[in-house]
Every structure is written in structure tokens, then in C-alpha cells.
């Protein structure tokens, strides 16, 4: 990756983070921690990786994305807005009664959202269905999904993993946002899902463990995913919950809490300094 491209992506991701904060601050609710941890990955997907068109969000041969960890909708909405699917000014309507930006993604009302999600464990199965459909029809589109590391405690994730392995869905690439925290605390204290990479390998995936905030590594992983034939691909992205806002980083308490005005201003100041 050229330094220019990397700088551009960093800048875009920084804007995405600002939008994430604006969304949860305006709503006085929402999930900043996991949105900030997945922000770089989603930025890369929507700005570099996926075949999508903001002017034609439903074009048939587009790549699909399912946010299985649907509570981090602020990250998805912010990336979609940044990419031009809808006006950035709508971000502040997040979770408001007259807004199309629901607490969890709603495919019926939000341009660019390929699947409604939010009930943990289900999105990866849906992504499998989309990938299977491409196989049935001989289409070339790819399907991406982002999972939480707490989410993979859901049994259905492993039903989906078995399915993806069994049907050799090499057009499916999932990423586990491994930020180590869930609502009740550290994943290793609540219900230890490790070893995550070995588990996906055992279910027939090609697996790559990366730093989920390093665009070179993100790019390398998605490149390898595309080159992998006969197997679905899982990226285990080591991330920091709350990444980019120092007082939110690695704190389970920022899983589902909105900043107050003072905290919001401090976060904006910190992120703006990066631009």
C-alpha cells in the first residue's frame, strides 16, 4: 500500500470515528466501543475492497456485507455516509423516532444495508446464504461479514461455520473484531472463546490473524482471502475497543454507553487533532 493511500484511509477512518461519536452522542445511546474497534476494517471494505456503487446500492452483482455484530451500526452508517450512500448530515438522526437510521441495521430503509441484523449469531448465517446463492447461480460477487468476539459465543456462529466449510464457500470472508471486551467484561472472564483461529480452522476455514488497525495487514488479509479457493476465509482482527478515543480505549464500560457533552467534546478534540 502506498503511503498516500494509507494516509487517505487513515483520514477517512478518522472521519468515520468522528461520525460514530456524533451518532451516539446525538442519540444519547448506542455502542461506541465496538464501533470504534471495527472502524478501520469497515473503512477498508467500503473504500478499497468491495464492489459497490453508492448511486446504485442494490445493483445485482455488488459485493454484500452483513454486520453480524449489528449493535455497531454507528460504524456501518458512518462508513456508508462517508462513502456517499446517504447524507452525512443524517448521522445525527441516529436512533431518533423519525430516522431511517435504526438502532440496529435495517435493510428496508437504509441505502447500502444489505441485511437487517442485530440479534447476535444470525448475520454470519445470512452471509452464508448470500454466498451460497452466488455459487448456485455462478455469480462472482463476494460476501463479507463482521462478527464480534463476544458474538462467537452464540452457538449459531458455529452452525454457520460448519455450513460455510461444508459447502466450500470461498466467496465468503468473515472478520472477527477481536477487541477482547463484551458488555459484562473481558471475553476471557465472561466465556472464553479462545483459541478463535484454531476453532475456525477446525471448521474448514483458511485463517489469518492480523492487527485490525493496520491497513497494510487488513489489505494483505483481504487479498489472501480472494486468492483462497475451496475454503471460506476468516480474519481474526486484533483490535482495541474504543480505538482512537483514549479514555474509551479498552474499557468494557464504553460498550453501550454514549458520551456526555464534555466527553463528546474531548473525543472530538482528540480525533480532530489527527486530521
Amino acid at each position, binding site marked *: 500500500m502506498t503511503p498516500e493511500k494509507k494516509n487517505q484511509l487513515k483520514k477517512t477512518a478518522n472521519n468515520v470515528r468522528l461520525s460514530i461519536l456524533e451518532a451516539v452522542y446525538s442519540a444519547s445511546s448506542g455502542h461506541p466501543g465496538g464501533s470504534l474497534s471495527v472502524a478501520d476494517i469497515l473503512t477498508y471494505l467500503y473504500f478499497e475492497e468491495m464492489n459497490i456503487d453508492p448511486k446504485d446500492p442494490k445493483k445485482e452483482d455488488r459485493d454484500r456485507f*452483513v454486520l453480524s455484530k449489528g449493535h455497531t451500526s454507528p460504524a456501518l452508517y458512518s462508513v456508508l455516509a462517508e462513502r456517499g450512500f446517504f447524507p452525512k448530515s443524517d448521522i445525527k438522526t441516529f436512533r431518533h423516532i423519525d430516522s431511517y437510521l435504526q438502532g440496529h441495521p435495517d435493510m428496508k430503509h437504509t441505502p447500502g444495508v444489505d441485511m437487517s441484523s442485530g*440479534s447476535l449469531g444470525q448475520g454470519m448465517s445470512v452471509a452464508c446464504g448470500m454466498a451460497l446463492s452466488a455459487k448456485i447461480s455462478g455469480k462472482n460477487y463476494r460476501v463479507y461479514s463482521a462478527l464480534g468476539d463476544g458474538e462467537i459465543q452464540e452457538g449459531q456462529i458455529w452452525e454457520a461455520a460448519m*455450513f460455510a466449510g461444508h459447502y466450500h464457500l470461498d466467496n465468503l470472508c468473515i472478520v472477527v473484531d477481536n477487541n477482547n471486551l463484551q458488555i459484562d467484561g473481558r471475553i476471557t472472564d465472561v466465556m472464553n472463546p479462545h483459541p478463535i483461529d484454531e476453532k475456525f480452522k477446525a471448521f474448514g476455514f483458511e485463517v489469518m490473524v492480523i492487527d485490525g488497525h493496520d491497513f497494510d495487514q487488513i489489505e494483505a488479509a483481504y487479498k489472501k482471502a480472494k486468492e483462497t479457493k475451496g475454503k471460506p476465509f476468516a480474519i481474526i482482527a486484533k483490535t482495541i475497543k474504543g480505538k482512537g478515543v483514549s479514555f474509551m480505549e479498552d474499557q468494557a464500560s464504553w460498550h453501550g454507553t454514549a458520551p456526555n457533552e464534555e466527553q463528546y467534546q474531548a473525543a472530538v478534540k482528540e480525533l480532530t487533532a489527527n486530521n
Partner: protein
Amino acid sequence: MADKIATRQAYGDALAEFGAIYPDLVVLDADLAGATKTGVFKKAFPDRFFDCGIAEGNMMCVAAGLSTTGKIPFASSFAMFAAGRAFEQVRNAIGYPHLNVKIGATHAGISVGEDGATHQCLEDIAIMRTIPGMVVINPADATEARAAVEAAIKYVGPVYLRFGRAAVPVLFDKATYKFEIGKGIQMNEGRDVTIVANGLMVEQALAARELLANEGIDAAVINMPTVKPIDSEIIINAAKKTGAIVTAEEHNIIGGLGSAVAEVVCENMPVPVVRVGTNDVFGRSGKVPPLLEMYGLTAKNICESAKKAIALKK
């Protein structure tokens, strides 16, 4: 029409029949293809059949994903697991986004027989009809089951189709039978009471009409395959015309056809409604005829309820 065919058999046959017409039709099962009869489709179209293994929650969501890309997926399992186990997947991944997924639930009701209570789903209609936008259909015979499958394919949106394990008499002639989602069928006119039935209880309702006639009671019979959207018009007319209604279903009296009919009657044309169904109990192992008797799902039970409803008029 002495033939007896299980509605699940008609379901599997219909999938294979319409699979030839609709190239986007895809069938999923959860290791029960032999029992749900999706195996008939699998044999005809192996490239469009996918076993999901014993993982119903995943299957429903895979179906959801398939539907977003233009496929018409039928996801099949026993009613207990399609509606019961996978309820939340059906609610959130299919119902909420109103996706074009068809759920083919077989082995519904007490007529599962020997497998007993764990497999006799008597709650599926109730829970499925509480999902906004979900169409719920419980066909009475093989002809209606086939027609319901065709209607479900043509309809865009989620549909729950309920089929039985046991062979039941063919009541309708394939050549003349017309099925429309949301429409009840007036089988007989009557003066004193209307019996509204679906599934295998339609046969019992018709038998009850004969028994009642012997006692000088003139009963109308309505077959109500679609529980949601319910045919309010035919129910209100029946209430106006006969002033008393009996419902008959192979389901808990709580939440199913009886409840749906009572809701319409109460809000539009209040008359007595007496419900025949399982009385808020679990089933047990046994052969089908003695089970139907033990759980009060016979023509005789409908007759008693009809008399009760008529008595309540006065």
C-alpha cells in the same frame, strides 16, 4: 375420493412439480428430507437442494440470505423445530425484513403420533401469527397443500406452511379447487351454527355436520386454511347468519385458529364462539385415532361444542 395422502407428501411432490417451473426455487432441510418429503425435490433437483444438518437456526438465516439475492427458498423441518427452535431467527432474520422465505413445517400437531409430546407441535400457529407480516397456512388435504405451495411461491413475503405427518382423506378435486391466500372456503351453508376448521379437522367438521343434521341441527362449515391474514368477511357473515361459531383445529385452543376467529367475532359481530383444540396440554405417544379421541379432536367433540355454542345464543 377415498384416497388418503399426507399433506407433507403433497408438499414434497409440489416442490418437485413447481421446481421445474421456478428456477429460483431452492430447498433447505435440516436432516429430515426423508420425513418432510423435501427429498422428492432433492431427487429431482439435487443442485438446488441443500441439507443444513441438524441446525435449524442457521438454516432459517441461510434461507434469509438466499432470499435477499432473489432466490425463493423453502426451509423445512418439523413444526416443532421450524417454528419452535428457530422462532427468533424467523422473527428477526425473516419476519422483520419481510423476506421472501417460505417455511415448510411438517409433522405439526398431535397426529405426529408415536414420537410423542416433544415432537407434537401445538403452538406453532400461535407463535407464527404474532410475527408482523407473516402469512400462516394450514392446509386440509393434499390438493390444498399443493395449491398452498403454489400460492406461497407466487406471493412475495414470508409464509409459514403447516403440514401433517398422517395420511388424510383427499377432500378437494385438483381440477376445480381454487386456493387464495387469506380466503376461507364455504363448504356448506347452514342455519344454526358455523363450524370453522382447518387442517385435518376439516374432515371432522364435515362429519360433525352430518351428526348434527341427524339431531335436527343445521351447521354450516367453513374451511379456513389461511389463519393469517384471516378472512374476516366470511367470519362476520357466518356470525351474522348463524349467530354461533365453533372452531376446530389440531392446535392448542390458545392462540391458533380459534383465537383468530374469536378476535374477529368479538370486534365485529359478537356471538358465542366455542373452540375445539387441545386444551392447553402437551400430547403423548400413541396411534393417531386414539390420540385424536383422547385430546378431544373428533367430530363428536365438535358436535358437543356446537350445541354449547347454540345454547349460549339464548
